[in-house]
């Protein structure tokens, strides 16, 4: 990865294309990140395998890279995770993501984003999805 993606995205709901694949994005689950999510957040606890809280973080990292930032004002409504294989800390993973569905319900735009996380050997580690209420207001400029 050459530099961080922007902080906030300006992608609007109408521009989201169902089934268009994004990635794979490469990430490394460092011992520090795993430790930071193994106990109370911000109070690191060393572990040998990635704790479950690592995977929503990987979802967010992939979302930020896929969308050129996090959609400002987006709200997480639902999340599903399927655990296929343990992941030792300091492992590299690749994450593919795509829009699984988009629909307006009760005048709010709901977007389902699918994730497929694989280890360096290509084996599935975690798959899942999140349903986000997409922001409807104008995009915001990323802070400096």
């Amino acid at each position: 990865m050459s530099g961080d993606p922007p902080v906030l995205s300006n992608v609007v709901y109408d521009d989201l294309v169902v089934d268009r694949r994004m990635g794979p994005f490469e990430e490394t689950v460092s011992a520090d990140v795993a430790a930071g999510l193994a106990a109370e957040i911000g109070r690191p606890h060393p572990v040998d395998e990635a704790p479950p809280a690592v995977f929503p973080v990987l979802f967010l990292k992939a979302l930020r890279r896929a969308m050129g930032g996090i959609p400002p004002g987006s709200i997480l409504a639902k999340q599903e995770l399927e655990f296929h294989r343990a992941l030792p800390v300091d492992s590299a993973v690749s994450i593919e993501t795509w829009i699984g569905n988009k629909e307006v319900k009760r005048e709010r735009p709901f977007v389902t984003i699918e994730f497929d996380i694989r280890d360096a050997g290509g084996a599935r580690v975690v798959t899942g999805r999140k349903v986000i209420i997409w922001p409807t207001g104008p995009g915001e400029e990323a802070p400096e």
Partner: protein
Amino acid sequence: MSVDRDFPGVTDRVTQDNIDAYAELSGDFNPLHVDPEAAAASEFGGIIAHGPVALHSFFRSATAWLGTAALPPGSKVSVVYRAPTRPGDEVTCELRELAELDDGRAALQADCVNQDGTTVVSVTAELAPLGA
């Protein structure tokens, strides 16, 4: 199987510091989580935590119950975020139902509840036995 009293109901105290720590870990600097002015102007009227911060007490409870750092392969977790969690909240995971499936997995339903008794997160999970 009746509700297992040995399931630990872990409590997380949510602070702006651990919301900020989660933003750093995840790269999610959504203004709803880190910008008091923007959050105050939103429908929530102030800062709310990232959804997974509210879910965290479930993951901590489940891994403590299993006695492992990770969830075993074959496990599934489904989460509904029901209400916002704010700095100063204390979120406790409460087990509601527990049953054993034919394949040996534990099927459970749990809620993450704040100090006012409001369910902020509901979880349905199938946890595979260790070594499966």
